[in-house]
């Protein structure tokens, strides 16, 4: 697991070494350099970076929605252009990927919330599930309501 990081570090150290030679009584510390690809070496770091990159999907979804609203405001023709564009394979592929990241975001977000909130009831910290659980339920409820409104009203 660490071999990539270690190799990267060793090679980075290799050419960045311009430290002066050892002089007596002056400790000479070795300072490993962090590779630019530090987040590739270990699974927890990869997960972290993916989680952080979900924010791009968030921005993308907002951009997509703004485009949709703009088309909507421009009249029926414009909106049908929008629907056509949205149905292109590239767009669908992008949206599927973005949707995956959005799910990742939602799940990690709800799971992390209990960490940030130390809710105490009569001295005992509330178990994590009692904080994240309702959020998941809320999420499902809102999604269901939105879907329902969409299906019924359009």
């Amino acid at each position, binding site marked *: 697991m660490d071999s990539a990081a270690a190799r990267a570090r060793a090679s980075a150290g290799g050419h960045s070494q311009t430290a002066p030679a050892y002089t007596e009584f002056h400790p*000479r510390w070795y300072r490993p350099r*962090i590779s630019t690809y530090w987040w590739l070496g270990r699974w927890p770091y990869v997960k972290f970076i993916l989680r952080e990159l979900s924010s791009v999907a968030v921005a993308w979804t907002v951009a997509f929605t703004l485009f949709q609203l703009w088309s909507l405001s421009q009249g029926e023709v414009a909106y049908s252009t929008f629907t056509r564009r949205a149905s292109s394979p590239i767009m669908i592929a992008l949206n599927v990927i973005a949707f995956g990241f959005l799910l990742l975001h939602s799940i990690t977000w709800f799971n992390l919330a209990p960490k940030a909130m130390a809710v105490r009831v009569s001295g005992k910290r509330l178990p994590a599930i009692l904080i994240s659980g309702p959020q998941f339920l809320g999420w499902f409820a809102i999604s269901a309501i939105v879907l329902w409104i969409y299906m019924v009203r359009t």
Partner: protein
Amino acid sequence: MAAGGTRVRTANSDRSESITMARNIDIELQVSRYSPEQDLEPHLQSYRVPIRDEWVILDALNYVKDKIDGTLTFRWSCRMGICGSCGYMINGEPKLGCATFLKDYAPGPVKIEPLRNFPIVRDLVIEISDFLEKLKKVKPWLIHEGSNGQGEYLQTPDQLEQFRQHSMCINCLLCYAACPISGLDPIFIGPAALALAHRYNKDSRDQGSAERMATLSHPDGIWGCTFVGECTRVCPKHVDPAGAIQQYKLAAAMDGMKSFLMPWGKR
């Protein structure tokens, strides 16, 4: 865990049997060596040591030091997971050498390196004075104005419970080795020191949270943390620095919003 090497757990149920099983079996240690007098950079050196059921990594290192190579250099003291001296990277994971069984890494090899994100002094010894500076910055002592004289400050078990977890830090610095931000951004105060600050803030006897706010609510303080969460995962004492930092962020944000929305409301 993902690429943690092959991990074989020897049966633990029947002790006497597993001891005989394990005896005479060797394991290879690959220890990172760096001597500032000779080397420009660290390299790995291999040693073969026997596997004993009750041996921790530290016992294996001491075996090498006593029997094979007296120059191998590492810190340790209590051998019971409480002094915080013996943090090493073991197969890439920050761990306490005295609380990690050797047999869990059979058949080996086990790679032992100095904790990541610190300057290396020699072999497995890292330089930690930077941490002590940071610790001092967050004022990890009880600030209590007024009657400092007689009588105890009362504190109920519930109030104690509010900060107890965060007071368990042994300063082993595994969390610094695990936190990428600590490596990338050397001025980031880092998980353990922030958790300790939070510990005092949460102590019902303490009145210093306002004083600590300046250091903590700073880009180098809590805001530097992006909630990687690795600090909490590796902490051998369940201090949960990640949680402490997020809780503090929430508190600081509330505080910040209050003074933002009601600038006149400053007491």
